[in-house]
């Protein structure tokens, strides 16, 4: 376990980050209302240290949804998210709240049709952290997480199956490993983070059930229990937080995999994105 001195070292790295978050700049005020949600939960319960980051993702996406088409589409992935992180309990517990949205514009291999996918999510996790167990500058944390994620996929050329709704609520595990180092004289934190929902509930229509039938009132069989046997959902992040003047600059890579099978329907979405973030 981490000694008090080691926790203090770990704590001090995040303290450097926190001083930036407490000095909101005019541009950041535009996001103030949303940040109330993001930061209040993490900061309100207990006095602690932490940061809030605004991140933009851009990269590649692959979307396979057999309700809409048996063909896998691929193309652009764009995302916008805010992540609030706070240390509490004398630096033993890490709270994270993330709110984000991502959009995919994907095309079929023939290049004669495209689809749009728009998703939004809110995720919260609370992790127990340890610093310096394997290496003095290496930290690890792990803990439970919960996530709500919902959105739509739209295929304009389809007749009565032009759109499908995605929605799930999951419980699972989140983990993080970070390594504090320096780039020249500036502190840098390298970080790997994973979110791994284990079980939950998700929405899926039956095999060829039309949304018109759902509109008429038939809502049987729309909710499914999700677990690793029928639903696997992972988000990986690998990146670095660098000091940039009075702010922190985040550069990283994020991979998101969402896979489920229900009612003989198959969904398999993958995205790989570069992440650019700035502390608020």
């Amino acid at each position, binding site marked *: 376990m981490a000694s008090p001195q080691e926790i203090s070292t770990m704590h001090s790295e995040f303290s450097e980050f926190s001083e930036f978050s407490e000095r909101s700049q005019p541009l950041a005020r535009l996001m103030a209302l949303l940040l109330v949600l993001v930061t209040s939960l993490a900061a309100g319960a207990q006095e602690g240290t932490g940061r809030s980051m605004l991140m933009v993702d851009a990269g590649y996406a692959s979307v396979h949804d057999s309700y809409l088409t048996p063909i896998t589409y691929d193309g652009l992935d764009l995302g916008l998210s805010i992540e609030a992180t706070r240390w509490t309990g004398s630096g033993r517990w890490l709270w994270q709240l993330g709110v984000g949205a991502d959009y995919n514009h994907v095309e079929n291999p023939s290049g004669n049709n495209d689809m749009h996918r728009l998703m939004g999510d809110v995720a919260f996790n609370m992790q127990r952290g340890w610093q310096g167990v394997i290496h003095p500058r290496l930290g690890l944390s792990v803990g439970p997480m919960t996530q709500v994620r919902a959105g739509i996929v739209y295929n304009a050329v389809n007749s009565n199956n032009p759109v499908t709704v995605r929605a799930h609520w999951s419980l699972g595990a989140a983990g993080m490993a970070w390594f504090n180092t320096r780039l020249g004289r500036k502190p840098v934190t390298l970080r790997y983070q994973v979110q791994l929902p284990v079980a939950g509930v998700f929405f899926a229509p039956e095999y060829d*059930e039309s949304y018109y039938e759902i509109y008429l009132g038939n809502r049987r069989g729309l909710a499914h229990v999700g677990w690793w046997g029928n639903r696997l959902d992972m988000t990986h992040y690998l990146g670095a937080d660098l000091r940039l003047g009075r702010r922190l600059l985040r550069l990283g890579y994020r991979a998101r995999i969402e896979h489920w099978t229900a009612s003989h329907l198959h969904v398999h979405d993958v995205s790989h994105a570069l992440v650019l973030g700035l502390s608020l």
Partner: protein
Amino acid sequence: MLLSRPDQTSRTAINNLSNRLFFNNVVQRCLSCLIMCIALVGCAEQDDFGHDQVGNFEALWTIMDEHYSFFDYKQVNWDEVHDLYRRRVSNEMTDRELFDLCGDMLKQLRDGHTNLIASHDVSRYWIWEQHPVNYDERIIDQNYLNFDYKRVSGIKYQILTSNIGYLRYDSFASGIGEGNLDLILSYLSTADGLIIDVRSNGGGLLTNVETLVARFIPGRTLAGYIRHKTGPGHDDLSEPYAYYFEPAKNHIHYLKPVVVLANRGSYSATNNFVSIMRGLDQVTVVGDTTGGGCGLPFTSELPNGWRVRFSSCPIMDAEGRLTEFGVPPDVRIDMDEHDRSRDAILDAAIALLTSRHLNPTTSR
């Protein structure tokens, strides 16, 4: 072996070593699990049809095999159809040749909702092409309306000289505004009866069917039943789900006698409209059998980008009957193709409503 109690420094070293070994073990196990998860996800089911002509043919056949809902009802042996057409497919075929062959294969289903759609053509099986047209807009405009009519929300309407209201709806794809419908029905309310002409209306949105029907029902009305495929098997169909329409609240209703005019071109959503209206006490259907098309069509896609539309969700009438091959009229009558001045179906409707107005006890 002589054991001695470790001193404080040794205990701390042992604890640190133990902790590091524990975490190394945990990290290794976590990474192993992660790699296994990624490998499992990588094995996700994907389309595995070839992108050549044979692959596209097999993709089309399989999509229909797994999603089409009327094989048993139409007594089509889809495996035999595969054998019949597969032997004519080769990778040396041109796209047009493959398209024509696939289009011919789909015609075995005798389904107007089933089309193969490519950049150069749309394959089709349109039943109304095999029957009398039974509708000529020019005859009505010239000889019944004198080119004097109102038109709004895709609806043409007027009161005929016989004091019968005439309402023509070209397509259920045209949105109907509730306010527009109030004004239309208010205008037609002084007529002795109403003719709703949906001949050669090829369908559109089922929500527009509900909007229109809701003006002619006095209370909650069983409109029919709907089913859907629950899996890839031909028999994988859900239990029929009864659906009801409610009268339009706070809007004008028309409960006088109504005649609905139909022909073979009254297809899909129009077929659904006629099947529901036919069940209402004050409504008589005059003309020809509708074109059918009671399967809500879905769309899928081949590897080469061609799209295929097919009947997926069967919709039945209030008696639980499939109307895939049409709704029969209460009064069967054809237009006289040689008489370019009269619409025999419309004349029959006018006569029926006039006699019903003069003798209200006459049943349909």
